[in-house]
């Protein structure tokens, strides 16, 4: 059976998501990003462990600004996905489902992700 034609509104520039919605879609986006960059992560791990030479050459590569940019993005993706995921686990246990708490924890997750990315990023480099 053909699905009925329903009105669609998918203009991403005009949709204003509430904070919990933003955290949620970023959780999905970060997850997708982590999945897509998995081969890169495995490649880095492999090179770091294969030999002292590949470890040294890897560290040299990690100095490049473009590489660092990608890795900072990956770091944020991991941290946001982790923090938002923990929030989702709490929601599964019916903790924090009232509007006020939901918004507060959403802001906390969003802020913590960015803050930890900045702190860890600065510390690593």
């Amino acid at each position, binding site marked *: 059976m053909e699905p009925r034609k329903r009105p669609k509104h998918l203009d991403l520039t005009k949709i204003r998501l509430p904070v919990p919605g933003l955290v949620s879609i970023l959780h*999905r986006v970060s*997850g*997708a990003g*982590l*999945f897509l960059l*998995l*081969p890169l992560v*495995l490649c880095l*791990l*492999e090179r*770091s*462990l294969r*030999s*002292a030479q590949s*470890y*040294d050459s890897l560290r040299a590569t990690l100095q490049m600004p473009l590489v660092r940019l990608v890795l900072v993005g990956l770091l944020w993706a991991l941290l946001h996905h*982790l923090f938002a*995921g*923990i929030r989702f*686990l709490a929601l*599964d246990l019916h903790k924090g489902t009232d509007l006020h708490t939901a918004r507060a924890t959403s802001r906390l997750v969003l802020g913590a992700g960015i803050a930890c990315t900045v702190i860890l990023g600065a510390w690593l480099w």
Partner: protein
Amino acid sequence: MVKRVVVGAHYGLRDWLAQRATAVIMAIYLAVFGLLLLALRPDSYEAWRGLFVLPGMRLASSVFFGALFYHAWVGVRDIVMDYVQPTLVRLVLEVAVITCLFAYGVWALQILWSI
């Protein structure tokens, strides 16, 4: 007989639970790994490799990657189910994702157990 369409569904509760169980496993591993990094501060190849040959480290890391690939499968399958309606395209994508994740799993094991 109801006409069944292969949609990658009907495994709801199992995968929903697995997604959360694997998440917890990975969170614990990452916390321990983070603490090890802070304690050991590996700054050379020997130190970094030394971390991975600690007793139980390779096994724990293998478990971590196993959890990661099942977790990733459930997540990506949810995305594909939400946005890709044409059944054949969705099936092809899902098979491609599973194949990639399986390959990554074998690759990760090879990385960990060849050091």
